[in-house]
């Protein structure tokens, strides 16, 4: 199943509309000449002396007979406007296409050479193109073209292209530069492919969409520039007639002064059609290359807003009849559902997840990539952004449901009651603000005005909590190392002494030594604040070191939940057990056993347990019914059909042990 093919067959509306409009103009230009006589057009009398435009209508002889049907009427000399348009339109398209071909052909060659060969060639090409870019195109062409003697359409296109190729060259060069760093280029070399072959076989196919987009841009630019020159009368030619030149002649012959709209109207309509077509074609192409753009339309935004509101109302309704909150829990997640709306259909990223965290407890949520762990954490803060939607569920923070309260109240509770240390949090800091000011901002928003001294004391305290020197407050994010930035984000998160901290892989980018130090800080901080922490991650070792209870996510479902020691010693779910067994240890060498198969696609998940295809214990029921969460022991939950008929997980069948070879 090819994604690129699917993308191409699913044409978007812009692309279809743009192609249809342009197709109409092209068809008009191609078929038109078969129905009219060139001599009837303005072009036909280009050789002849023109009567001055101030001549009265009665003074000039009618050059042509009136027996043809004048669809758009006639000009001053009685020449057919429709016929003139029919001959002018293809020339306008031609000047654009010629410019596009020359500019892109040369620009692509230069861009690819510069990007792929680099070194002196790159410097030389860049010098020439930078110089050309610095020349004001239109002004230069005005002077240059106006001095020509009866130039042909090819000369005009070439003149424009000479100044416009650097744009294409630059875009293509930077794309080639990115592509040549891809590992598949190194792999191709290791496969014995020679440089030229690497360029044509590995690099070029991937710049094709860019070439197409650049071509449309160049055509657009070519038509626009040519038209500007033509309309202004700076193209002294009788060798061709384009829509731009037609407008010039209308103006020159007094058609505009005399209000002869039927004369200048048709070329303007055609010009508008051409630009409309090109615009939609290029915007459609952009969506094709970057599908995310599709959801930025105004209508899509309105629909999204309505959807969010509707879901909020539904959750409010549900909250009215909810069971009373658990008094022992600081955070209670009940039946949380998060769905990603994609073009292929809804993806259930978080599917009916429930668990509770006690005050001061450290809980871990472990899962592999795509298991929904980060999506769940973001949803708990109600920070999900489209295409992610919280479709159902409650998140009770000390009994108050974050999923159904009003936006203002939610804003007050975030950071003060529940805070998040996000993944790759080095990017979560504002780069143009001092670290200390970022904390002060949070304090002012949540606690109102306070004296300067009290404020500074709070900021210093936040830094102390995360083991950062107080001087860091005066620094900007770029002045800090990765570990220090991570601590700075943590300082912002804890400055308001939240009751719950969600830490989403806070150490994923750090080396082990720094990671340990960071986790020890988080541990102490958590204890000092008496806050509960939900640590999200994929490393069982790190979880073991930090958390009290552990939840295991698989395919958006919580498949097991128990004290971490119990899971390590005696996991109930086959997935948990196999994940633990697949870990390498430092104590003894063993043969490494992985989990066979691959994680499921969440789109159109088949019925039954999502782990069934990889499970060594699988039986018929697993493929039909999704297992409900059960409580096989105190403080333990598992979603697996082996229970309650078993009291613990039987030894792994031999099928699981030979998984490496048979997978």
């Amino acid at each position, binding site marked *: 199943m090819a994604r690129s093919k699917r993308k191409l067959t699913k044409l978007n509306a812009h692309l279809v509309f743009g192609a249809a409009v342009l197709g109409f103009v092209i068809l008009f230009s191609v078929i038109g000449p078969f129905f009219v006589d060139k001599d009837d057009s303005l072009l036909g009398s280009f050789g002849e002396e023109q009567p001055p435009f101030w001549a009265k209508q009665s003074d000039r002889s009618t050059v042509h007979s009136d027996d043809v049907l004048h669809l758009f009427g006639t000009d001053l000399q009685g020449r057919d406007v429709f016929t003139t348009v029919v001959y002018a339109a293809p020339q306008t398209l031609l000047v654009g296409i010629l410019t596009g071909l020359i500019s892109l052909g040369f620009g692509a060659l230069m861009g690819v050479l510069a990007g792929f060969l680099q070194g002196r060639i790159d410097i030389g090409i860049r010098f020439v193109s930078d110089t050309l870019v610095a020349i004001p195109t239109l002004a230069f062409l005005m002077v240059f073209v106006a001095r020509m003697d009866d130039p042909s359409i090819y000369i005009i296109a070439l003149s424009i292209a000479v100044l416009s190729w650097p744009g294409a060259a630059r875009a293509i060069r930077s794309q080639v530069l990115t592509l040549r760093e891809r590992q598949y280029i190194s792999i191709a070399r290791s*496969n*014995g492919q020679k440089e030229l072959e690497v360029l044509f076989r590995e690099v070029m196919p991937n710049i094709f969409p860019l070439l197409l987009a650049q071509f449309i841009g160049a055509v657009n630019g070519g038509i626009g520039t040519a038209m500007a020159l033509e309309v202004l009368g700076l193209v002294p030619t009788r060798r061709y007639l384009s829509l731009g030149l037609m407008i010039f002649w209308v103006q020159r012959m007094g058609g505009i002064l005399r209000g002869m709209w039927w004369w200048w109207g048709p070329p303007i309509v055609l010009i508008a059609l051409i630009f409309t077509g090109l615009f939609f074609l290029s915007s459609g192409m952009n969506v094709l290359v970057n599908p995310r753009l599709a959801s930025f339309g105004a209508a899509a935004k309105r629909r999204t807003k309505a959807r969010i509101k509707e879901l909020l109302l539904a959750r409010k309704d549900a909250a009215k009849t909810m069971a009373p909150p658990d008094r022992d829990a600081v955070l209670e997640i009940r039946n949380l559902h998060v769905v990603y709306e994609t073009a292929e259909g809804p993806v259930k990223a978080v599917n009916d997840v429930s668990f509770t965290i006690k005050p001061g407890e450290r809980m871990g949520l472990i899962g592999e*990539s795509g298991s929904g762990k980060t999506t769940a954490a973001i949803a708990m803060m109600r920070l999900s952004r489209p295409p992610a939607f919280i479709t159902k569920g409650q998140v009770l923070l000390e009994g108050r449901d974050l999923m159904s309260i009003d936006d203002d109240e939610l804003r007050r509770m975030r950071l003060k009651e529940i805070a998040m240390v996000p993944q790759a949090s080095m990017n979560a800091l504002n780069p143009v603000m001092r670290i200390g000011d970022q904390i002060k901002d949070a304090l002012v928003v949540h606690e109102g005005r306070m004296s300067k001294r009290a404020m500074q004391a709070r900021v210093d305290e936040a830094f102390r909590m995360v083991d950062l020197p107080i001087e860091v407050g005066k620094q900007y994010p770029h002045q800090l190392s990765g570990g220090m930035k991570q601590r700075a984000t943590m300082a912002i998160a804890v400055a308001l002494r939240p009751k719950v901290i969600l830490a989403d892989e806070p150490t994923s980018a750090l080396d*082990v030594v720094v990671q340990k130090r960071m986790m020890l800080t988080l541990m102490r901080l958590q204890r000092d604040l008496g806050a509960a922490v939900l640590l999200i991650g994929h490393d069982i070792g790190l979880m073991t*070191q*930090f958390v009290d209870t552990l939840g295991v996510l698989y395919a958006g479902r919580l498949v097991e939940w128990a004290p971490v020691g119990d899971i390590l010693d005696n996991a109930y779910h086959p997935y948990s057990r196999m994940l633990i067994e697949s870990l390498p240890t430092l104590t003894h060498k063993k043969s490494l056993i*992985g989990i066979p198969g691959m*994680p499921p696609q969440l789109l159109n998940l088949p019925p039954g347990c999502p782990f069934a295809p990889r499970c060594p214990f699988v039986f018929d029921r697993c493929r039909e019914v999704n297992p409900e969460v059960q409580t096989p022991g105190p403080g333990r939950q598992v979603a697996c059909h082996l229970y309650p008929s078993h009291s613990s997980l039987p030894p792994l069948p031999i099928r699981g042990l030979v*998984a*490496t070879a048979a997978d």
Partner: protein
Amino acid sequence: MTNILEMDKVSKIFKRRGGGQVVAVDNVTFTLREGHSTMVAIAGESGSGKSTLALLLMGQHEPTSGSVRYMGKDLSEMTREDRAQLRREIQPIYQDPYSAYNPFYKVDHVLNMAISHYNLANSEAEAEELITESLELVGLRPEETLGRYPFGLSGGQRQRLMVTRAMICKPKIIMADEPVSMVDASLRATILSSLQALNKQFGIPVIYITHDLATAYQICDNIMIMYSGCVVEAGSVEKVIRDPQHPYTQLLISSIPLPDTSQRWVDLAGADTDPAILVSDRRTTGCRFAPRCPYAMDKCWSTAPQPRVTGEYRAVACFRYEDSPPLESADVADVFDYSA
């Protein structure tokens, strides 16, 4: 005994833009010997110089000083043909299983390219047989992998396919640079065991570059621990990882989060009381680890320690083991255990 790959007192210094320099690899001597299909781990944190070392070994970086030789030939004096041979015989496996595939082609492309450019098959049927055989060795089913685009496969499958590709090229050395660090935990084991299979079945030495000592311990025979461009400790994994001697190796191992509740990190009142975690501002011209070392002595700051043989199959570059005999050759591979 001939050496396949030799690194003789190699250093690599990168000039920083706007002055200054970074010593990425500092005076490393290391050989890979013919007839010993050992799996060697080069381990260290980011900035330790382990990846630069790999690029030097593959001839993709020129050493600033010292020499790298492949089959006795100095890389800097190689002809175009020699380089082509080097490129074929040292096959890489990279970290990112996503960008290793050209998204324009089906995954078969990388295998077909290798076969056609290295004339590994005389007919279509022969090529197909070669691919099928190689896929089975890494535990992949041809019908589940071939004919698909890269995004249709899991990270684990993609990475094992990369192992297959390297194997098809019939290399003399496999250079695996963090091959599992971007793959989910449940899929790592299969990739590592496919690397092991390659090593054991064909006797191809593997250089495994990693920051993860647990996987290094599981699959490798020997290990070099790098810190700031220097090899600080080397030897058999059983010795180095089970009983680390260099303070840095000790720090690394004590920082690994073990999945064992009985070995939890001590939750001290101040995390910083662990002295090895502290970094001193004092500049060092001697041992690179001195600013972080809890045992740093005066001479550590001024002189770089030379490697010493502290027992069978192990060597350490640290003044705390000055009583042990020096490693005369300076070649850390001299203490490797080849019995496996």
